[in-house]
């Protein structure tokens, strides 16, 4: 996509300026996406959850309340920040780092058509995995820096939970990579041209979704920030824009998970008749709606149950699954 934009823009600008303009445009695109995606998904989430609960959700701000999250963001920007006895450096660093990670996810992930990247690198699947799973350290750091009992308990819970499920997540990704022989999402999609991987690897798919859920801390795995137990867990002392950054990175991760589900298991943009772009977005929206549902249906697990489940079932099963895939490939 970079070369395409460069090609278009170099017609209008002369030699040194065209590169700069292209760079600026290429930066602005992901920034806009980072800003817009959470607003839209946040609205969908609220509205969808409200309908499950036979409420209406936001209705007043804009048509169907679609500007509700804009109002929230504006409010968060205008909010003062109070802190007491926090470790300033790490306190400010964590939201920025998490936002940067979600920014990079947006940069690296393909946007629904072959070659529609902001930045194309060969191992983008691995990179996206790393960016989604970078959080345990940051969460622990946030929990510690806030100097609050709730936050430190939440921080330890978050680190434990994500460290447990990261392993399962990478092993499930490995089995997909082994089957397709590549860490590049485009290649994985291309190798699913005839049959989706969800047919080959149904157990892997289920484990991927569960582990992905645990890693992005979405209900019912929102144990580190359990509202009814720890108020906001490791986010407890954050206010204003920094809290907004957390919400933003949560929704970006949620979105990335539903996109990855489609790329890895449901054939990405492959499909008959309709153009690739349309196929991908139809699949992604369906996947996202399904992934948004458990929050409104399931209660929260307890941390010990979650960790036991992770080590006793998920990890051995995923390793076994990997071995089986390897054996089949060898044969």
């Amino acid at each position, binding site marked *: 996509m970079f070369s395409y934009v460069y090609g278009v823009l170099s017609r209008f600008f002369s030699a040194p300026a065209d590169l700069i303009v292209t760079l600026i445009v290429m930066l602005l695109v992901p920034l806009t996406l980072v800003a817009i995606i959470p607003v839209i998904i946040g609205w969908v989430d609220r509205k969808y*959850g409200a309908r*499950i*609960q*036979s*409420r209406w959700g936001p209705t007043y701000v804009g048509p169907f309340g679609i500007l509700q999250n804009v109002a929230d963001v504006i409010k968060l920007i205008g909010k003062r920040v109070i802190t007491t006895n926090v470790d300033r450096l790490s306190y400010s660093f964590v939201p920025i780092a998490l936002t940067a990670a979600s920014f990079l996810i947006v940069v690296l992930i393909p946007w629904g058509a072959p070659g529609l990247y902001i930045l194309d690198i060969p191992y983008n699947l691995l990179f996206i995995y790393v960016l989604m799973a970078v959080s345990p350290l940051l969460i622990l750091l946030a929990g510690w820096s806030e100097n609050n*009992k*709730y936050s*430190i*308990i939440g921080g*330890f*819970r978050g680190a434990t939970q994500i460290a447990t499920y990261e392993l399962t997540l990478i092993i499930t990704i490995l089995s997909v990579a082994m089957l397709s022989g590549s860490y590049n999402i485009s290649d994985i999609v291309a190798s699913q041209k005839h049959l989706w991987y969800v047919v080959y690897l149904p157990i892997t798919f289920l484990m991927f979704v569960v582990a992905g859920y645990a890693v992005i801390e979405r*209900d*019912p795995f*929102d*144990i580190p920030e*359990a*509202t*009814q*137990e*720890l*108020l906001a867990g490791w986010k407890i002392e954050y206010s204003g824009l920094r809290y907004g950054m957390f919400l933003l990175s949560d929704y970006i991760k949620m979105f990335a998970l539903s996109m990855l589900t489609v790329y890895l298991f449901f054939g990405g943009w492959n499909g008959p008749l309709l153009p690739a772009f349309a196929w991908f977005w139809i699949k992604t929206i369906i996947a996202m709606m399904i992934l948004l549902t458990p929050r*409104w*249906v*399931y*209660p*929260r*697990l*307890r*941390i*010990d*149950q979650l960790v036991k489940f992770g080590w006793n079932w998920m990890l051995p099963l995923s390793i076994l699954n990997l071995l089986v895939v390897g054996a089949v490939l060898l044969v």
Partner: protein
Amino acid sequence: MENRKGVILNIGPVHPATHGVLRLIADLEGDTIENIKVDIGFLHRGKEKLAEMRYFSNYYPIVDKLDYVSALQMEILFGSVVEKAAGITLPPRAVYIRMIMAEIQRIMSHLVFIGSFGMDVGNYTGFIWAFREREELMTIVESVSGGRLAPMYICNGGTFYDLPENFNQALTPVLDDIEKKINKDYRALFNDNNIFVMRTKGVGVINKSTVIENGITGPNMRAAGIKRDLRRDEPYLAYESMDFEIPTEESGDSYSRFIIRIKEIIESIKIIRQALKNIPTGPYKTSVPWLLKIPEKQTFVRQEVSKGEMAMYMVTNGGLTPYRLKIRSPTFFSLKMLEKILKGSKIADIVAVVASLDPVMGEVDR
């Protein structure tokens, strides 16, 4: 607590899961509770002192706010105390009206329990659904009494108003709807929900000996396997002519306390249906002077309210106000046991166990 290694976590009194203003001071080791202390009294509004300053008829609004999720039962209890002390007999229609309203209120109270229990284990939808069903009943209470949470419907010698016309036609579909939803929607959301069962089964077990030791009554007691219900054992309104079961469970954990309340809603619906069929016609109140004088006497009345056995002990000395009114709140007794049963469990269990006891702080602190 001097040589502790862990953290002391202060949960409440302002916390989303403490049902008002309960305060728990937990001594933690990691995520596990080493020791826990209960602190109450954040809603102590001095109701027992206020009783000494109010006329018998003017105390009803304050009684409403004892257990504010089942206000009508509180009114009925205080009405019974005053009527027993003053020797007033109720007309039979008033007895039936009171019983119907008490059972409606019991369903509403249990629905609040289901909702808050659902929310506390992390299921926000359960909360919204329970309040949706409660709102339907609230409309009925509103049409009968004019009030919502604090209806002010019971007065000395009966009720303020008769039941409205079409009461039967309005109530029956609501009851059918609630029964259907409990058997279908709630079953899907709670009983058949694996994570919900995982979170509540075997958590916060109260066995028979703990029950007897602490004087726990009501659904929490019946969940531990003691079959006792004042509606059956010491019938007060018209309960002896009603046909209903007393549900019991054996295990005494949070899950069984939830199941007990689900079953009690079904039994209450049964009682209301029978009462609607048999309700006599006639006057709905006997005329009692607003300023009542009760001779020197000590009166004790206890009734089965939604939280357990609630009792009032009224001492009168011939004046216009009670000389002393002591209120026995059922949850006051069950909260103490939290210190014992929560030891060694996780933080998440605090929330589940506290919610399963269904405390209402207005009644605990009085």
